[in-house]
């Protein structure tokens, strides 16, 4: 088994545990490169089908190519798509810095999805190497009803034994890509021939390294127009993947605050 085989086998194991233990189950699909891999891995785990709904938390602010990708592959992959309209920015905590407030709409959309105990498990395609508080996540992360992350008191998790039981009203965030890196995602997408949103490829010296809402995400300078070129770029760059995600760096703990209050 090579590196990608091991990553895949571990993720498939996690997805099958989730499907067996957390019902009803749904996966968040931001339609970016990571959650596309999650969908792909689910098809691996369940032999061609995704046996649970995939949910887009829609702010209405995604780039056009994102919506196009969603519509095309919902049909081709026979997905049970659920679109949640995120509450407007005016309803967000006014104490948050402006761009963080905009990002908080997704947490609010997720809360809306979970309202009334609709789901026991939510699959989210975050990775430890993306961001430092995500590096501290568990594979199965129990969340209070509010979605809050009790990062000071996380359960132990070892030997691939996950917390699958939750108190009444709480839910589980399940993170099948936690052990992957950004380059892993590209190598795997290439090996598996997963369709790539053209926004990731450079046009006129710019490409999106990480996709977010158009008002709070910026493309990076790049000439990488193929997966191979992206991989080469990533192997030499010293700037962070989420550098274009402007809400992360508004304050020392702005992303931590987003995450502890329920952001993915």
């Amino acid at each position: 088994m090579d590196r990608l085989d091991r990553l895949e086998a571990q993720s498939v194991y996690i997805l099958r545990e989730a499907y067996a233990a957390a019902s009803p189950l749904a996966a968040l699909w931001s339609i970016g490169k990571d959650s596309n891999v999650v969908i792909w891995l689910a098809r691996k785990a369940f032999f061609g089908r995704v046996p649970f709904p995939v949910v887009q938390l829609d702010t209405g602010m995604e780039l056009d190519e994102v919506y196009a990708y969603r519509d095309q592959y919902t049909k081709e992959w026979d997905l049970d798509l659920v679109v949640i309209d995120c509450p407007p920015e005016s309803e967000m905590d006014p104490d948050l810095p402006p761009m963080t407030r905009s990002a908080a709409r997704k947490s609010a959309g997720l809360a809306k999805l979970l309202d009334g105990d609709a789901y026991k498990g939510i699959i989210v395609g975050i990775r430890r190497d993306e961001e430092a508080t995500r590096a501290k996540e568990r594979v199965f992360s129990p969340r209070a009803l509010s979605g809050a992350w009790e990062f000071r008191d996380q359960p132990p998790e070892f030997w691939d034994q996950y917390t699958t039981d939750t108190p009444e009203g709480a839910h589980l965030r399940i993170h099948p890509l936690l052990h992957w890196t950004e380059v892993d995602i590209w190598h795997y997408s290439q090996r598996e021939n997963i369709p790539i949103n053209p926004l990731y490829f450079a046009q006129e010296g710019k490409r999106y390294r990480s996709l977010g809402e158009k008002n709070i995400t910026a493309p990076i300078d790049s000439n990488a127009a193929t997966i191979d070129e992206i991989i080469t770029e990533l192997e030499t760059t010293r700037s962070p993947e989420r550098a274009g995600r402007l809400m992360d760096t508004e304050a020392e703990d702005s992303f931590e605050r987003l995450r502890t209050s329920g952001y993915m």
Partner: protein
Amino acid sequence: MPNDTAIQMNELRAGTTSGDLMRVVIVGHVDHGKSTLVGRMFHDTGQLPDGKLEAIQEMCRRRGMPFEWAFLMDSLKAERDQGVTIDTSQIWFRHNARQYVIIDAPGHREFIRNMVTGASNADAAMLMIDADQGVRRQSRHHSYLLQLLGVREVAVAVNKMDLVDYDEARFRQIETEYKSYLEGIGIQARRVIPISAREGDNVATASDRMSWYDGPSVIETMAEFELPESPVDRPLRLPLQDVYKFDDRRILAGRIESGRLHVGDELVFSPSNRTARIASIESWNTGEPATTASAEQSVGITLDEQIFVERGEVASHVSDAPIETDVFHLRLFWLADTPLEVGKTYGLKIGPRHLNATIERIERVIDVEALSDHEATKVSRDEIAEVVVRTNQLVAIDNHDNLPRTGRVIVYDRHITLAGGIVSMGSYPDQREQITIRSSNLTEVDHGVDNTRRAARNRHQPGVLWFTGLSGAGKSTLAMALEHRLFDEGYQVYVLDGDNVRTGLNANLGFSPEDRAENIRRVGEVAALLSDAGLIVITAFISPYRADRDRAREAGGDSFREIYIKADVATCESRDPKGLYKRARAGEIQEFTGISAPYEEPTDPELIVDTSDKDIESCLDELVAYVKANFAVTAK
């Protein structure tokens, strides 16, 4: 750039498909410099991302403190504000051809469960010791936990050598003390390295301040670490996660924990003991269907027969199947605030299998400081102990020494993980042989003579009087005397004991745990047959295990009576009619019940005859009265 930049370390990875991936956890006592070492490694190998150094400087400046490398890993604001690592973190790192995941584990006593979480994912460990403070509690506790978690590659970094003037004598003192401790728990440290993480001595480059040390640096030592071997050549274990029926295929899904399988192999599923052959290996988007799969792969298989199996069963080859048992030893690390209690029932997870288990007894609590044992009635948080657990159903497991991945369990209560533990059977037998019915073409034949007629002629009901108790409690003496008395009173009665079964019926059995269990199983079956023939059968065997006696009860049916011939170990030892206790104490007999192997007292026997304070005659009278009251046919 905002002047208050959050730290991100996402970019710290590269070349992920070339070379191997080694996961190294940094552990040790709080404040011995774990997070500092990680920061320093990144800096000294030129892998800090752009802006990171400046961001850390800025965070330190705002807090009015000197530069703090630990801020690279301590990503939570609470961690930076309090200067302590709360939860484990991971960071990617590359040096020469090898890629590493560095796992930072908290050293504070309060966060042991987070340390366990981090360390359980590691292939190797770097243990940090403060040269000034020396070996401390968590230095020992963490290394013991590494041993239980199965991390075998270990090196030691003696840090803060700058605080002891780079003194070789101080280093050698710690090296000797700690190495001897590690050897005591079965860990061979690959290297012991004197370093100063703050100053960079022996982190990535050799230190000219410690010319007396000519060994490798931390980075060079990490390059020496070897990845654990994948258990592909071990016996096959495929615990089932689920059975899918999405279309016309019925697919059994799971991850192969060890061994390999091929299409056409005959599998046995434990503990249901059903068998079938592999018809196909199923997958999606892989081109040609595979005909073989091996350890670490998540697979789906279909079978040639539609047998009923479910999540939690373990598939293996027939010839090398897991142990089936409902009782075993567990060496566990207790993580919960509420202590473990004897007699309490907890949840147990063995791979994907969930079931209930009762803590039967605590054998010892291990003091990780002194490596001594003591008896206890409870196990408190952060303690390590050996216990005996009894499950409410048969489970398929392995000895951890033999197959670690299927020889470890989690103890939980509702949604809270309380402990992890590794399994050993000790003297408990594999019960697989006792429950497997091999013949499938059996038809019951009606007897021409029914039990009522036999009882009428014998003038008593048939029965199995199952004597159990320690060696020297008086089982054989009482059995023979009772046989004599009953026979004289006209009963059809017979004694089964070691002498008459071991020489013939069971002559092919030795004294392994499995053979002892089989010995008792056969006695139980023969007793049942003789009782069916109308006799009163008295058996005189220690039969120390509840599971064995329960099986004899099942064979004997309504006529079975469990009679506890009771005397404590001290009394039996003072009698010692065959000199066995003396030999057991001298170590000449291994696994001697009451001395070096457990005796499981009956929980609900029909009769208890206490021989410690009564003479033989009065015990005998008790037994005769019991038989008359229970088996005599009064109505003629």
